């Protein structure tokens, strides 16, 4: 049941500088992994590759369902999501920002209405559903990003520094949302964070990115 992710010997360089150097790891379905590491160690690059946003220079990203390897097609991409450090808010209402993932999947109007409202309640933005997403505060924007990810029920959810530069209140709200996702156990969650205390609170497994490789902490 669910997706298992395995990365094998991933190599990635930017402008001649090696970022990932033979990075390998297996992620089990339904568990939460907190990935730590200094700035520039390749955590974000790893997440982008794992979420199929960009290909590695070498190595393999393998997704398996019941042991069956899946092709990297749209169907697989739609089971995975990545919360980027900059959310990329669409110039439209909060409601339609969150509804985006469902609309492009061709869900019915009623289904969209119900699911978006549920998620907006969970992230505490239901009172702002008609407001333009660009007018939200930074904390609310981050919650909007999480809401967009939550509403599509991803089986693998990659979160790139979801609480970076947020005040404690917003940080706590987002941690609670991630914790509720973890408790539900439907998704494999990979959280990149600089906060080791947060990593311990959220992660079933703590990982560290060192010298372009992932290792258990």
């Amino acid at each position, binding site marked *: 049941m669910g997706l298992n992710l395995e990365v094998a010997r991933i190599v990635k360089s930017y402008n001649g500088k090696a970022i990932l150097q033979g990075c390998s790891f297996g992620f089990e379905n339904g568990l939460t992994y907190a990935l730590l590491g200094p700035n520039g160690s390749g955590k974000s690059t790893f997440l982008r590759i794992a*979420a199929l*946003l960009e290909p590695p220079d070498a190595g393999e990203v393998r997704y398996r369902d019941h042991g069956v390897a899946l092709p990297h097609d*749209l169907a697989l*991409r*739609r089971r995975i*999501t*990545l*919360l*980027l450090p*900059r*959310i*990329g808010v*669409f*110039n*439209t*209402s909060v*409601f*339609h*920002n969150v*509804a*985006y*993932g469902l*609309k*492009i*999947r061709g869900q019915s109007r009623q289904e969209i209405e119900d699911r978006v409202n549920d998620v907006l309640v969970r992230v505490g933005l239901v009172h702002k559903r*008609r407001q*333009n997403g660009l007018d939200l505060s930074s904390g609310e924007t981050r919650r909007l990003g999480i809401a*967009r*990810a939550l509403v*599509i029920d991803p089986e693998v959810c990659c979160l790139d520094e979801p609480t970076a530069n947020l005040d404690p209140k917003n940080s706590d709200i987002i941690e609670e949302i991630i914790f509720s996702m973890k408790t539900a156990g439907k998704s494999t969650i990979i959280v990149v964070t600089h906060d080791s205390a947060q990593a311990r609170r959220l992660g079933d497994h703590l990982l560290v990115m060192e010298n372009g490789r992932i290792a258990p902490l």
Partner: protein
Amino acid sequence: MHSIIYGFIGAGKLILTINAELLSIILLSLRVSGAALVIAALLGLPLGAALAWRRVPLRGLVISLINTGMGLPPVVAGLFLYLLLSRSGPLGSLGLLYTPTAMVMVQAILACPIVASLSHAAIVRVDPVIRQAAITLGATPLQEVLTVIREARYGIMAGVMAGLGRAMAEVGAVIIVGGNIAGYTRVMTTTIALETDKGDFELAIALGLILLLISFGINLGLRFFQRLGRVRAGIILWD
């Protein structure tokens, strides 16, 4: 001085009494420029989007040609279209010279580079993270493109409005290919030019005022739509 004053008084009378000739000229102008704008948008928008999206061959050259097209002297466009449509030209058998269709064609030729160039500029200005966000949420390549275009919508609309402005203001090219035939190809700008030549300012001033009013109305509409779109974009543009 007297001629100006009497010109304005006469123009006011023409407008207030909804003069039939005036009305037919205005309607023809709107029909011709509207049709030209639709064609310019249908060609220019996909061209602008394609140039923004893909590393198409000779992309730099195509962009330079489009930018040159923005400054294309209307009489030159009129001259080339005239040569194509004239009886001895390659499209002469279509019999389009001195028809409203020829006027639509030349206005579309002049407006298209503006729509393409400003659409292209608006699309490349969209933050790349928007595209990435669309991909991470499961967009297909087409949905990705549409999402970025939607984010650029106000810039694109500004390009379309600028295209409409150029089409409606056109005189020289329209006279060359339309012939300024009364009741058939005479539009607002060509009538203004003709009536001014004749020293008959009433109709010219009336049409000038209406042209200004149309331009003002378009700008007001654009501002209203932008404001509304900014606040309630989702409700208006997504459904």
